[in-house]
């Protein structure tokens, strides 16, 4: 069964450093998402991406964050200058093009745990 994959599974970085989190969405999906989950808190939406541009973003997704689809398979989240409060689990998700009913669900990857020291 096709699945979303994410690398690395765990990333440790120093405050102020740049990190790039990698995701490979399911191959025939066209919508891509990033979410984060701070330990013990809700899963929060960051950004959605469609047709090579951001379609929606939350207030969390400020100028420190960027997303890119550098080739036909990868979808990345970059944090330019990490802060302590960026420590969280980051989930990537993908979805087929909007169809009614069962095709509308998002499929999630296993997450990357980011630890900022």
């Amino acid at each position, binding site marked *: 069964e096709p699945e*979303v994959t*994410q690398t690395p*599974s765990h990333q440790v970085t120093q405050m102020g450093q740049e990190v790039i989190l990698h995701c490979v969405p399911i191959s025939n999906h066209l*919508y891509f*998402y990033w979410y984060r989950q701070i330990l013990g*808190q*809700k*899963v*929060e*939406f960051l950004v*959605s991406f*469609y047709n090579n541009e951001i*379609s*929606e973003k939350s207030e969390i997704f400020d100028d420190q964050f960027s997303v890119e689809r550098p080739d036909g398979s990868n979808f990345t989240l970059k944090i330019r200058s990490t802060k302590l409060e960026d420590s969280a689990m980051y*989930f990537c*998700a993908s979805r087929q*093009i*909007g169809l*009614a*009913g*069962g095709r*509308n*669900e*998002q*499929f*999630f*990857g*296993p*997450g990357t745990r980011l630890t900022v020291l």
Partner: protein
Amino acid sequence: AQSVTQPDIHITVSEGASLELRCNYSYGATPYLFWYVQSPGQGLQLLLKYFSGDTLVQGIKGFEAEFKRSQSSFNLRKPSVHWSDAAEYFCAVGARGGGSYIPTFGRGTSLIVHP
């Protein structure tokens, strides 16, 4: 804006016992509703969803959920819990309309299963 409340942070049940995880939502119209499960080291897996039609929804792994509009609830149930069901469970609500819905998640309920 929509919101989701999962009032129970932790639930402990014995293996073989029945289970009900509570979920209440706030949304101005009929929402899309989802339950996801997250096992340790795994991503979020969709258990079941409600879009329209029958308000009792069957999902994978023997789970079901019932949409009750009058109570703004979408509680998850399973008649007999297995030890492998121990995980984090998330209820989510998605707004209708548009091509790119964004589900809003609850805080999650951690299910502990005793042998």
